[in-house]
Each structure stands twice: as C-alpha cells, then as structure tokens.
C-alpha cells in the first residue's frame, strides 16, 4: 500500500502539472482572447467539467487512444485524463484570480510600452498565481481523491492495492481504514506544503488570513 501511495502521488503530480501548464494559457485565452478562441475554450471547459471522470477514463483508455493507434500504459492515461480535467478546473481558478486584479495593473504595464504578452508574463501572472494558491490547494485535494477512481483502469495506486489485499485477506475494515488514513495524510501534507508556499511568496504589506 505504501507503493500504492507512490503511484497515487505520481498520478496526482502528473495531473496537477499537466493541469497547470494547460490551465494557465487556457485562462489567459479566456480572459484576453478573441471571441472565437473564448468559444473554443468554453467548449473545452464544458466538456471536461461535464463528463464524469470514470466515463472519461474509459473513453480515453478504451476509445480514443486505441483509435489513434496509441497504446499507453494505464498510469499515463490516468495522469493525462486527470490532468485534462484538472486543466479545465484550474483554468477557472486562474481566470478568477486574473479577473480579481485591478484593471489598472494591465493599463500601467501598457502605458510603459509593454506588449500585452510581456505584461501578462511580468505583471499579471506573478500576481494571479499567488492568488491562485488557495484554490489550487482545493484542486489538489480533489484530484487526490479522484485518483482513486483510476483503480478502474488497473492503475496500481492506493485503492487498487488495498482492494487487492482485501480480497485475499478479508481484513476489509483495517485495510480500507488504512487507505483512508493514507489519503488523509497525503491531503494534509499537500495542503500544508501549499500553505507554506503561499506564505513564502506572500507580498509584504498584505495581511494573511
């Protein structure tokens, strides 16, 4: 089960990372993009937020990927699917953070002669990402628990290992309680780490809550 934890952590980190690198440009596109781009993004977000995780896992693992002739391991597919879903949710966290910044920040950057791209990279994102950390920690705890569903693809994560042992030993109570405890520990460790990060990058002069 400890090995399972490592697989779980792998899936969650992969998903969070993919969600981050896709979620940021998606959020930027949705806030600053042309109407056509915004429409495409809206469909993307609707798709990945609207379909249950289990359906998407099967759809990709047994449907899309074989159709494309790709034979990826269950671990990879689980990370990608969770990552795509997370990118949809994370994009909304970032979008909210960007929109919460005063309009004057972008104006002041433009007034200096910055291109919009430079203004977004140097002025908007450094502030928006800081504001995103609390929402991000929420997203982490959700993905962590969603990762249990990837057991259905046979990813050897906590839930799969627990189930495997439980069917052999019949020690259901103690085993699933342990699994629950592992998730609790991982949630605590992750949110605590993000809390420390939040404090570390806090802009001096702003109150912490």
């Amino acid at each position, binding site marked *: 089960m400890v090995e399972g934890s490592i697989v779980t952590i792998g899936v969650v980190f992969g998903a969070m990372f993919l969600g981050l690198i896709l979620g940021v440009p998606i959020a930027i596109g949705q806030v600053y993009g042309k109407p056509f781009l915004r429409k495409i993004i809206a469909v993307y977000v609707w798709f990945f937020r609207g379909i249950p995780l289990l359906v998407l896992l099967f759809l990709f693992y047994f449907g899309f990927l074989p159709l494309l002739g790709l034979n990826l391991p269950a671990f990879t597919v689980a990370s990608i699917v969770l990552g795509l879903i997370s990118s949809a949710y994370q994009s909304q966290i970032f979008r909210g953070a960007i929109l919460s910044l005063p309009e004057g920040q972008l104006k*002041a950057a433009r007034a*200096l*002669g*910055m291109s919009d791209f430079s203004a977004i990279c*140097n002025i908007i994102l450094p502030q928006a990402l800081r504001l995103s950390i609390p929402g991000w920690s929420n997203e982490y705890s959700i993905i962590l628990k969603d990762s249990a569903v990837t057991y259905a693809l046979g990813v050897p994560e906590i839930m799969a290992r627990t189930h495997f042992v439980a069917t052999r030993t019949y020690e259901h109570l103690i085993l699933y309680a342990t699994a629950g405890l592992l998730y609790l520990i991982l949630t605590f460790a992750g949110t605590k780490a993000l809390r420390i990060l939040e404090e570390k990058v806090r802009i*001096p*002069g702003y109150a912490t809550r």
Partner: protein
Amino acid sequence: MTNRDPILKIENISKKYGSKEILRSISLEIKKGETKVLIGPSGAGKSTLLQCINFLVMPDTGKVYLDGRCINSRKKKELYTYRQQVGMIFQDFNLFDHLTALENVSIGLIRVKKIKRSEANERAMQELKRVGLEEHANKYPAQLSGGQKQRVSIARALAMDPKVMLLDEPTSALDPELVGEVLNVIRNLVESGMTMLMATHQINFAAAVADEIIFMENGTIIEHGPPQEILFKPKNSRTKSFCSKINEIYGDMLT
C-alpha cells in the same frame, strides 16, 4: 512659451461608449516644455481624453501626432514605442503590487528597454532619489503611503525618459496632507522643463504652473487660455460657474 512645433498634437479625437458620447472631436497641441492643465467637472471626459492620447482607450476617430509623426495605433510595434515616450500617471497610482518600489521603477527599463538589470536598478535608484524616496526603495506598494505611491509612479514614468507626461488627477486619491508632497514633485518637473498635460482639481496649483488651462465639459473643450484669463475672467458662463464652485469646495483664494 516657444514658437517651435508642437511635440504632441491631437486632432479631432472622439469616443463613444454605446450611444453616450464621451469625447466630441477634441483637438489640442502642446509644445516642448509646456504644461497644460485640464479642468472640468467629473464626467467631462478628462480621464478618457488622457487615456485616448496613449491609446489605453482606443479613440473612435482622430489622430495623435508625436514630434510631427502620426501614430498608427494598429501597428503594435509603433504603438509600444510611442507609449514608451509618453509617461502616464494615474489617479490611483497603479503600482505593480508584487514588486518593490525599486522594481516598479526598473521593470520598464528591464522588460521594455531591455537594459541590463544592474544598470536599470541604478537608474531606478536615481529616479527614486529625484522624488525623495531612495530610503523606501525596497518597500512594497502596500507598505507605502498614497503620496509615496504616487511619487514612485512618477519615478516609474520618468525612468522611461518620456517626451511628454500625461497626469490623470494625480492627487485626487490622496489624503489632504499628502497632496503637497506630490505637487512638489510635479512642480519640480515643470521647472525642469518636462512637457505635461495634467487633469486636476487643484486650481491653485494649476494657476501657478500652467501655461494654459483647458476647461472641458460634456466631452468638449469649452474654453482655453492662460490661467489668469480662464480663472479670473472666463468668457463662458459655464467656466465661470465651475471655477466658483471649485473655489467654494477647495477654499482656494481665486477672487
């Protein structure tokens, strides 16, 4: 002041929001070293006009000339280069909240002018000194008073070596006791020969530093001329009533 060609000229700038006309064909020009002050009631279009001049708000029609060159705001490169030469001071400062005072001043040099970080910081420090804030270089905006923030924002604009500065009610968001320090900095700029267009309600200050006062209302220029003329013997009745109202509110000693 001088008979040279105008450094900044705007021609027939108009702007509508929906069906509401904010600016109706505004034209004006400023020569090098001149200070012109925009006055007028809230909603007159002063802010929108200033923001149209450096295309933070896109005017519907009209032309802007810097040094005799018409600016094509559709060409991004040209627009960005133009904006570097036009310093902008906002009513609510708009300092970058995640950067120290020094970084606020140097970021334009580093990211826009592509100057080396060490040189940029040196230059930024000079500008902070000029506004009397070198001791606060490493503080963040949230740790500064309103007056200090506005002075940082002036330093930020100055660091870019602007040819013209646009000031949008630079003291309106400040507590009364902080207005003086900002006005002092602006007065120094006037004396150093900076070319400026400033919207303000500080009539006394305007009278002291302006080469010309421009009275705006409902998106048009009602009257313009030397301060003595506009403030003491305005031809237009609306200018007159505005000046006397301002006089009451701010307790200026105009009459």
